[in-house]
C-alpha cells in the first residue's frame, strides 16, 4: 500500500526492538470483550486509477452541471484560478493549528490578515479565525450574547435562513428554560419588531440582512429595538457580496456579526466546507468564541504573530470555556483571504454591482413574464416573487433540462402562497438570463 512504508524487514526489526513477535501481538492488551472478531467488511483496497474512476463517476452523476437560479444560502461566484492554486500549497494545507508559532508564521500572518479584512468588511474591530459555517456562527452568537448579558431569552427573525434557525434550535435544546421567540415577517418582506416588546429580558436579537427573501433589513431599527430592551444585536448574512454595496452591520449598531463566507472564493461544494464568520466589539472579547491571532514581537524585536487570548478556549478553560470549538474552517479562511486579496476593495465593489445589476435584470424579466412581486422592499442577488399559475409544473419540467428554476418558499413560509425565491449572480450573463426566461415563459 502506497501510504504504508514499512517493508517486512522493517517490521521484523522494529518488532524485535519492541520485544513482541508479530503486529497482532502489539494489541494483546485489548481484552477479548473489546476485541474485533470479524475482519473489516469494506470494499478496496482500490488502486489510484480504480478510485478515480469510481469517484469521477459519482461526480458525473451529481449536480455540478445544473443551471441554478437561486441561492438560498449557497451562491455560485467566479473564483480566480490563482486562489485554489495558492491555497493548495501543502505548507498551508498539511499543517496543523499554529500552536508552535515559530513553525507557522505563514498561517498566523494569514489569519491576522483575514481577521483584519473581515473586520473591515463588517465594521467591527474583532474577528475570529473562523467558525464551521454561517449557521453555527449564529448559534454561537446567541450563546455569546447570553453570557455577555447574563440573560437567557433568544429572539430570532423568521426571515433568517430556515436551516440556520434549525441549527439554533438544536444548540439550545438542552436549555429547557430558554424559549426561542421568532419574530414574524411584515408585508414589506422585512422583520416585524413589534412583538419584541413583549419578550422578557431578551439576550439577543438575531437578524439576517439581506434576509432569506433577499430583502435588505433595516438593521439600525433592529439595533434600536433590541438595545432599548437591554439585549444585543447579532446581525448576519449569507451573501458577503452584499457588503460591497451596503452599510456595514457594525456601523448600523450590531454588537456581534455572524455570517457565511462561502461567497468569498469558496465553491458551493454541495454545502461544505464553507466558512463561518464572526466578529464583535473589543469589550466583549473575553466572551467571544474561536481562535484569535494577535500581533506581537519575538525575542529580537521582530514582528510576528501568535494565537492569543487562548484562556477562553476549551483546551485551557475546559468546562468553563466560552465554546467547545477546536478545529474551525481555517483553510477556508485562508482561501477567503486569498480571494479578498485578489479581488481587492475596488474589484469587490464593482463585482457586487454586477451581481446587483444581473439579479435586478432577472427580476425585471420575470415580472414581465407574469410573476408578481411578493414584497416591495429593496433586495440584493435574491428576491421572492409570486408565480403565475402553472409555474410549479414548469419548474418540475425544467429539471429535465438540468435547470433549477427557483425554490418554493411555501415549505418554510406557508403564508407566502405560490411564492418562489429566485436569484442570479455575476456567473449568469445576460444571455443566460434571457435563455432562462425563454424557458420559464
Amino acid at each position, binding site marked *: 500500500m502506497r501510504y504504508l512504508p514499512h517493508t517486512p524487514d522493517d517490521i521484523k526489526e522494529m518488532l524485535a526492538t519492541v520485544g513482541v513477535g508479530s503486529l497482532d501481538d502489539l494489541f494483546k492488551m485489548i481484552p477479548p470483550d473489546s476485541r*474485533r472478531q470479524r475482519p473489516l467488511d469494506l470494499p478496496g483496497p482500490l488502486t489510484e486509477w480504480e478510485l478515480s474512476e469510481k469517484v469521477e463517476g459519482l*461526480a458525473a452523476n451529481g449536480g455540478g452541471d445544473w443551471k441554478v437560479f437561486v441561492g438560498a444560502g449557497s451562491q455560485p461566484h467566479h473564483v480566480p484560478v490563482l486562489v485554489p492554486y495558492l491555497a493548495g500549497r501543502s505548507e498551508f494545507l498539511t499543517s496543523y493549528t499554529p500552536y508552535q508559532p515559530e513553525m507557522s508564521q505563514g498561517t498566523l500572518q494569514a489569519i491576522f490578515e483575514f481577521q483584519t479584512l473581515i473586520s473591515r468588511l463588517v465594521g467591527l474591530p474583532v*474577528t475570529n479565525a473562523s467558525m464551521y459555517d454561517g449557521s453555527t456562527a449564529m448559534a454561537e452568537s446567541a450563546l455569546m450574547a447570553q453570557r455577555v448579558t447574563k440573560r437567557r431569552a433568544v429572539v430570532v427573525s423568521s426571515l433568517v435562513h430556515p436551516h440556520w434557525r434549525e441549527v439554533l434550535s438544536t444548540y439550545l435544546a438542552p436549555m429547557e428554560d430558554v424559549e426561542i421567540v421568532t419574530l414574524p415577517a411584515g408585508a414589506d418582506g422585512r422583520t416585524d419588531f413589534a412583538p419584541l416588546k413583549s419578550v422578557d429580558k431578551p439576550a439577543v436579537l438575531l437578524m439576517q440582512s439581506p434576509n432569506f427573501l433577499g430583502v435588505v433589513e433595516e438593521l439600525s431599527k433592529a439595533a434600536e429595538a433590541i438595545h432599548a430592551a437591554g439585549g444585543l444585536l447579532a446581525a448576519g448574512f449569507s451573501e458577503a457580496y452584499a457588503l460591497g454595496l451596503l452599510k456595514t452591520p457594525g456601523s448600523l449598531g450590531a454588537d456581534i456579526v455572524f455570517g457565511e463566507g462561502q461567497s468569498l472564493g469558496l465553491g458551493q*461544494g454541495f454545502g461544505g466546507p464553507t466558512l463561518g464568520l464572526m466578529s464583535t466589539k473589543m469589550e466583549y472579547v473575553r466572551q467571544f468564541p474561536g481562535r484569535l491571532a494577535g500581533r506581537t514581537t519575538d525575542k529580537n524585536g521582530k514582528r510576528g504573530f501568535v494565537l492569543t487570548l487562548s484562556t477562553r478556549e476549551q483546551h485551557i478553560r475546559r*468546562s468553563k470555556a466560552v465554546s467547545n470549538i477546536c478545529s474551525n474552517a481555517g483553510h477556508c479562511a485562508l482561501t477567503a483571504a486569498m480571494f479578498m486579496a485578489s479581488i481587492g476593495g475596488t474589484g469587490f465593489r464593482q463585482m457586487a454591482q454586477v451581481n446587483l445589476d444581473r439579479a435586478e435584470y432577472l427580476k425585471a424579466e420575470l415580472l414581465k413574464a407574469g410573476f408578481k412581486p411578493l414584497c416591495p422592499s429593496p433586495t440584493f442577488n435574491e428576491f421572492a416573487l409570486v408565480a403565475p399559475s402553472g409555474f410549479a409544473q414548469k419548474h418540475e419540467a425544467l429539471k429535465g433540462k*438540468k435547470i433549477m428554476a427557483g425554490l418554493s418558499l411555501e415549505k418554510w413560509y406557508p403564508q407566502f402562497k405560490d411564492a418562489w425565491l429566485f436569484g442570479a449572480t455575476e456567473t449568469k450573463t445576460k444571455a443566460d438570463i434571457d435563455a432562462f426566461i425563454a424557458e420559464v415563459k
Partner: protein
Amino acid sequence: MSDKCQCTPAAECGLILNEDLLWEKGRPGRSSMSVPESGVPAASLPADLAGDGPNWPDLSEQEVARHYTRLSTWNFGVDTGMYPLGSCTMKYNPKINEAMANLPGFVNAHPMLPAEATQGELQLIYELEKYLAEIVGLKASCLQPGAGAHGELCGMLMISAYHRHNKNKKTKVLMPETAHGTNPATAAMCGYSEIKVPLGPNGALEYATVEKLMTDDVAGLMVTNPNTLGLFENELPKIIEMIHQRGGLIYGDGANLNAIMGYADLGAMGIDVVHYNVHKTLSTPHGGGGPGAGPVAVSDTLLPYLPGPRVVKNGDKYEWNSDLPLSIGRLHNFYGQFRVLVRAYAYVLSLGPELKKASALAVLNANYIKEKLKHAFDLPFDQPCMHECVFTDAKQAPNKVSTLDIAKRLIDLGYHPPTVYFPLVVHNAIMIEPTETECKEDIDGFIAAMLQVAEDAKNDPSILQNAPIKTKVQRLDETTAARHPILTGDMS
C-alpha cells in the same frame, strides 16, 4: 552526533524572505481578478442603505502570488517533515484525495438541488456512512457534524435528547482526568456538570473508582479509548455495563481511533456514540486549523436521535428523509463538510480492509519510539502503548531545561515538536504520535534528534534554552500579546 543523525533534516541557512502585511502593499485600482461588464441596465440600492464597500488593498496577480508563496515558506506541514504531534494524528494526506475533492462536479454542486439531481453526492454520503459504522462496529453513522468537537456536541446533544425523551433527570457526566478539553466544554454546552474520574496507577480507568462515582443523576461517561496517554482502557466493557444498568449512556471520543481500526469493536465495548476526526484517522488535511469533519457513529439506542435529514436508499435511488421525529435536528448549514468527506471516502476505499494494517503500523512506530527513548526521557507509564507515548522533562528539569525548551530545540533540528503540556494529568508532558506513514529511516532520524536534545540538555542547556535559532522569528512574546491584544491591523 552519531552517524544516524545525518538523516536529521536540519535547516541549513534557509532562504527566508520578508513579506509585508497585505495592506502595506498594493495601489488603489490594481486588481488580480477580472470583473465582467454587467451587460444589463445598471441598478441601484436606496441611498440610505448604501455604504462604501470594504477598504481592502488592491493588488496585482503577481503581488498576491508572491505574498502567499512567501508566507507558505514560513510554515511547516506534513509534506515538509515529520509532525509527531500527539493526539493530532498528522499522517500523510494523499494527493489523489485532493483531486477527488476538487472535481468540478462536486465543487459546483448546489446543496439545495433536488435529490434526483445529486444522486452521486447522495450515494457517496450513503456509502461512507455505512463504512464508518462498519469500521467501529456500530449500527449507523451520520456525516453532518462540522469537526471533531462538533461531533462531540452532536453526540452529547443526542444523549441529552435521549434522557429528555425518556424523562430521565440527569445533570452530570463522568469525565476521566485524561479527557481532551473539548469533552468538559461540550458537556457544559449540554448543561451537564462534570464529575472528574481519577486514573488508576497504571494510567487507565478502574471499575471500582467509576462505580463509586456513578449516581442516578449521571447522564453517562465521556471516554477516549485508547486514552490520551496512549493506553487502552481495558476495564471499559465492565464499566460500561454498570453505567448502562444504572441508566447512563456512553460517549466515545474518537480522537484516537487511528490506533484500533480492525482490532477493537466499539459496539462490543458498549459505546453508544463515537465521533471521528477525519483529519486524524481518515487522512484529510488539517489545513492549519480546519476544516475538519466530525461524523458520528451510533448504537441502536441512539440511532433515532441522529441529526437530519438523512440519506436513505429506496430501490436504486437515493433520497432525503426528513421524517425523523426523535432526531436532534440540523447541526450544519446543509449536510456537513461534503468535500472534506470526499477525501475521507477516497481514503477508506484506497485502504479498504488494510486500514487494520495502518493501525498496526501506527502502534508499531509509537512503541518503537518509546523503547528507543525511554532511557533518555522520563516515561511515567512504562507499559505497551498504542499509537502514542507520553514522556516528561523530569530527567532534564534539574538542568533547568523544560518541556518547552525541548520542543523548541527540535524545531532547529527540523522536526515539528510533539504535543507539549498535554495530557494535563502528566506534569510537563511530551506526547509523541508518529503515525503509520513515517518510514523507519524517518522514525530513526527523529529518535536520533530526540537523543541529541537529551545530550544537549546535559552538556549545554543554553542550546535548548535559546532555541530555536534557525527560524524567521524566535520565542514570541505571548504575554504582551495577551495583555494588550492587537487582533487586527490598520482599521482605517
